[in-house]
């Protein structure tokens, strides 16, 4: 890591909201907390704020590192920091751990004040719309009436889109990266297999495993392994692992033999040790439910009629989970509504994960667009 362009030491903050949040499902959260981090300085007229929304397994720690954990660098540190495309010398950048998450914001593993026990199965299903509602309250708290930009990749891109629909006047620019207007049947199928791995783990206990002092590690691990396959591309896997055998020869056992097996299991174990199974279920369901065109009879043009933001839409050529044609559908709906929109289809070998990678052209596009955004409030 190059320390010179890193934002440096950061710390998380916490906000408590006592106004009940009525979720789309009808369930009510009487009180909730959000953890968040901010980088840079909010300018005098509060016009330089950027909200970065996280994807399935992300959180509020997007840049910098913690004093007591110097190796815990934010998940999008290559994009966000001084002099980086999301330039913290110019923008006031906010990262939030979404409601239902497991990194400090109120979620299924939090203690329910009414019962004194973790919410577990009692935590409501949270949708993308609900997230926007909860994030808007944090924006109110920070005194931000309108964001210079809301941006994110994958599920984060869906939140950027939803922001532009839920609060058209509060978003000047929406940067929608490696996203889709809704999941395809194939995508939902992958999510369902992942959920089934968790739901059928004997240690899951219907979501209330906390009381049993166990964790559905096997299910979570399988879910992550499956997910991970879909975030990479065939070529990227071939390049990185090929058919390489760890022992250099066939072992005629069911132990780990191929490098790819070793990699996936490592990723699965790492994830299962740090992530909450209920949060994983909740996040995949939020993905499945996201479909702004649904209430307009499937007409995405009508869904985007409310949007007022300027858009940058980006896709990656080898992303088969959220393929370029999915992004082009978003662009078309914006064109039909005469919104300002630019679209780039970025060459990358890394599949869906490309949005997290450091790529010269990708970062140039982001930088060029955000320089324009910075020009709007100068």
């Amino acid at each position, binding site marked *: 890591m190059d320390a010179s362009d890193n934002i440096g030491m950061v710390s998380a903050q916490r906000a408590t909201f006592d106004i009940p949040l009525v979720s789309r499902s009808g369930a009510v959260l009487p009180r909730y907390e959000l953890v968040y981090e901010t980088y840079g300085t909010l300018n005098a007229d509060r016009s330089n704020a950027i909200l970065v929304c996280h994807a399935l397994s992300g959180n509020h720690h997007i840049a910098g590192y913690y004093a007591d954990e110097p190796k815990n660098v934010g998940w999008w540190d290559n994009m966000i920091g001084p002099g980086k495309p999301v330039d913290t010398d110019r923008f006031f950048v906010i990262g939030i751990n979404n409601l239902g998450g497991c990194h400090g914001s109120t979620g299924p593993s939090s203690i329910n004040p009414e019962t004194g026990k973790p919410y577990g199965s009692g935590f409501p299903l949270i949708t993308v719309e609900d997230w926007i509602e909860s994030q808007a309250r944090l924006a109110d708290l920070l005194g931000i009436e309108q964001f210079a930009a809301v941006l994110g990749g994958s599920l984060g891109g869906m939140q950027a889109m939803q922001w532009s629909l839920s609060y058209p006047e509060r978003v000047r620019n929406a940067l929608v990266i490696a996203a889709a207007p809704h999941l395809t049947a194939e995508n939902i199928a992958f999510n369902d297999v992942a959920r089934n791995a968790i739901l059928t783990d004997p240690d899951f206990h219907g979501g209330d495993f906390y009381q049993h002092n166990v964790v559905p590690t096997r299910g979570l691990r399988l879910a992550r392994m499956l997910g991970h396959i879909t975030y990479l591309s065939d070529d990227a896997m071939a390049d990185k692992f090929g058919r390489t055998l760890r022992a250099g020869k066939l072992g005629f056992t069911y132990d780990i033999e191929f490098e790819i097996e070793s990699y996936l299991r490592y990723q699965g174990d790492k994830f299962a040790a740090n992530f909450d199974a209920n949060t994983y279920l909740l996040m995949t369901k939020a993905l499945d439910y996201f479909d702004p065109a649904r209430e307009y009879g499937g007409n995405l043009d009508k869904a985007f009629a409310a949007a007022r933001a300027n858009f940058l839409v980006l896709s990656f050529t080898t992303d088969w989970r959220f393929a370029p044609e999915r992004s082009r559908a978003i*662009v078309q709906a914006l*064109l039909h509504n005469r919104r300002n*929109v630019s*679209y*780039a289809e*970025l060459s990358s070998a890394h599949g869906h994960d490309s949005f997290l990678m450091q790529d010269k052209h990708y970062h140039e*596009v982001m930088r*060029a667009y955000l320089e324009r955004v910075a020009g709007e409030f100068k």
Partner: protein
Amino acid sequence: MSAHDPIELAAARPDFAAIAAWIPKGASVLDLGCGDGSLLRFLRDTREVRGYGVEISDANIVACIRNGVNVIQGDLDSGLSGFETQAFDYVILSQTLQAIRHTEALVKEILRVGRAGIVSFPNFGYWRNRLKIIRGNMPVSRELPYQWYDTPNVHLCTLHDFEEFCAKQKVQILNRHVMTGGSEVQVLTNLLGSTAVYRFQRGP
């Protein structure tokens, strides 16, 4: 003065000025093969157009974004299916016609998406080009800057060729502006003009 000063740009790119002269204030414009977005920016600054560019090159996408114009990355040879019928007042093809593979299909698409079309292209019938060929070489010039082995141009044509093409395709030419080095050419245009700009619509 900046490279984007409209007056300077009009002097440097007389085809821009010719195109702008035909476009009413506030029109909606689609610029196919928009390059670095200079024309769209020029039209926005001088004619207050609302518009989008379509461009294939990565470097030009970044340049367009820097220029503050909307750009959609895509390949013109795969059509304009993302754009609605009659969505734009003008569809512009500036110095790109000669690099298009499926010319007939694209001209049809231009007149589906736009109420009128504008194309500009280098005139292959310009006397200097003819002279180069008589001398035995493919022309290389300001308008045709590429070597034969390293050119995106696959469909070079003369003014006569283009006008015959339009007649055959039932495309009605509304205006023509022929230039050499920034000055308008009125006589022997196919011989004396190095660049042409046409405005056209669907024929009756």
